[in-house]
């Protein structure tokens, strides 16, 4: 029995350097490789969901928007449309974006404003602007839980645990001043789940280097074999404003016609 135990300990002892080096190798996983794994994560070819957008200001006044969102991949090109369902004063507002895989190609964006009943083309370089009063930028909305690899230089800082999940801590610095100005950030620090490759938390610094906002990704569940975040919350430390996106009735693989992702679909509404 003893010799068996000795053999087992010996085996574990001999294996342990391999195991440690394996962990070390993973710990040292390059930031850019982590970013690639985030973007390689399956997020379904088509998804349909309702999103409740709750915005709370410093004084506690809350504004709530109910929306319907559809996203579909056309090859590597991602198209997302969001229809506002309530409240009545912004009902029928709709937003459409085409997110192209080519780094040197500007994305295309449109906004339908019911007061004018016209679709307005929006400059895609406004990506650091806040999306319709939320604390998410247009870029955040386009990327959802993915990242813009080419916009940052990526550096792995270490490992930490968030809500009991092992995460890589990665620092992202915009590749140049122009990109920093466009995004509105001088630095981002992300906590990325080492198993499912989803950002669980991120901190943002503004272009002047001051703490700007913190993103929390919660209620991550496996739906139809796809890891799905059901709550995204952002707190802006400069304004005290907070936005919580809550996802409901998330369905993957539903048949959604290509024509839903057009300027005319924005006008017709949901």
């Amino acid at each position, binding site marked *: 029995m003893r010799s068996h135990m000795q053999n087992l300990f010996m085996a574990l002892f001999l294996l342990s350097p391999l195991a440690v080096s394996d962990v070390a190798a993973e710990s040292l996983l390059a930031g850019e490789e982590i970013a690639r794994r985030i973007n390689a994560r399956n997020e379904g070819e088509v998804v349909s969901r309702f999103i409740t957008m709750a915005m709370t200001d410093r004084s506690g006044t*809350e504004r709530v928007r*109910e929306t319907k969102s559809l996203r579909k991949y056309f090859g590597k090109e991602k198209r997302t449309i969001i229809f506002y369902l*309530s409240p*009545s004063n912004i009902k029928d507002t709709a937003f459409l974006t085409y997110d192209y895989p080519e780094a040197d190609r500007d994305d295309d964006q449109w906004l339908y404003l019911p007061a004018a009943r016209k*679709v307005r083309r929006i*400059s895609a370089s*406004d990506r650091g602007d806040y999306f319709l009063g939320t604390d998410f930028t247009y870029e955040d909305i386009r990327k959802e839980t993915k990242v813009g690899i080419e916009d940052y230089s990526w550096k792995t800082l270490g490992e930490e645990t968030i809500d009991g999940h092992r995460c890589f801590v990665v620092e992202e610095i915009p590749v140049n001043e122009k990109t920093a100005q466009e995004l509105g950030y001088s630095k981002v620090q992300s906590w990325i789940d080492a198993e499912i490759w989803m950002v669980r938390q991120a901190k943002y610094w503004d272009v002047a280097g001051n703490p700007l906002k913190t993103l929390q990704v919660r209620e991550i569940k496996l739906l139809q074999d796809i890891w799905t975040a059901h709550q995204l919350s952002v707190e802006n430390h400069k304004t005290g404003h907070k936005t919580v996106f809550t996802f409901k009735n998330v369905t993957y693989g539903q048949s959604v016609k290509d024509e839903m992702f057009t300027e*005319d679909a924005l006008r017709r509404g949901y």
Partner: protein
Amino acid sequence: MLRSYARCGILALAGWLIAASALAESTPDETKSSQSSNHRFSAVLESEAAYGMARDRANKMEMMVEPQWEYRWGDETRITGIARLYTEGFDHLEPGRLSQGEVAPNSRRLQLGDRTDVELREFYLRTRLWGMHLTLGKQQVVWGKADGLKLLDVVNPQNFREFILDNFDDSRIPLWTFNAELPVGGGNLQVLWIPDRTYHRLPQAGGTFAFSSPLVVPQAPPGVGVNLRPLERPNNIVMDSDIGMRFSKFWHGWDLTVNYLYHFADFPVFFQSVLLAPGGATVTVNPRYERNHLIGGSFSNAFGNLTMRGEAIYNTDQFVLTMNRRDGDGVIKSGEIAYVLGLDWSGIQDTLLSVQLFQSWLLHPADGMVRDALDTTSTVLLRRHFLNETLETEVLWLQSVNQGDGLVRPKISYELRDNLKIWTGFDLFYGDRNGLFGQFDQNDRLVIGIELGL
């Protein structure tokens, strides 16, 4: 008789929508906002008051209740109804009982006294059939990319009771329309048939914004009597209907449309004839709507933080008033080419700077025309949001280059709560009283308003 029943039915529907929205207000929020329900009720209550600074008097105190009801069958079929209860306390914008001569009988408002009316604004079925998107019923169809002034956005007529100060969604007059959209060649083809013979609602004499500029209203020489004949309106529901087509396509980053509209232009043409009699001359004015072919297109694209957009049109039959006494009917008929080019710059966060240039060129000008052959108007809009878009400030400036007159509209609005918005601003006209804007130089006003979503 049948027409009368139809009108009663339409107005009863409008009344029901208003009553139903009041009932919906008493139901719990969870019920109203439920996405699983086939019914959706919502309503907007808006009130706006205006104080005329030059005349030192309040010139508007309006209240509007606009309930909306929607019923859905599945994802692709829904019926939508929007009614409006409108009341204006001073009766200065549309004084007295409305003649509604420009409006087809089935689209008229039900007047409850001089100051209040009820209207069925929109009522349509939207469905998908044989690969087409059909929208059938009373609706607004909006074409074009321009802001503030209209070239392609002429499918629906407009109520000018507040000139162009009212927002277009409120002032645009919905029409009974057959609207089919179908995918063609990677784009979208829209086909319109509009049997509703309703045209621009022009303010009557005595109204705050009644037109007086010679650019739009014929002027009789001093001492000459005027005999204004009743408005001649098209009366055949088939032969006098409008038809339109629009093909839109997203092509290499460009949003492109090609448009065609065969319609009665919404402004009546004031044909004039002079009768010389021993007692003095009399001008008889015969207002009549005239046919026009509109052929045009629009584009938009974004380059960095600059968005470019534009429209261009060719009108076959434009009518312009002339002061030439030797002219037989007081109007000149000409083709017209017009375009608008707009640039939107958003290089500063939460800020939009938008400039537009409109030009209209008459192809067959004649001596004595009240307008120049080439007419130019420019607009500048500066808008900035604060506090997560709860606070919005803007200044809109419209300038007629030819007349030297214009309009400046600074405005500030604040979203107090999710469903409660307030605003205040000025509408400041300047320039010669013969100009399109200058004619209202005495109508500068301070506006305050509130909007409540129910």
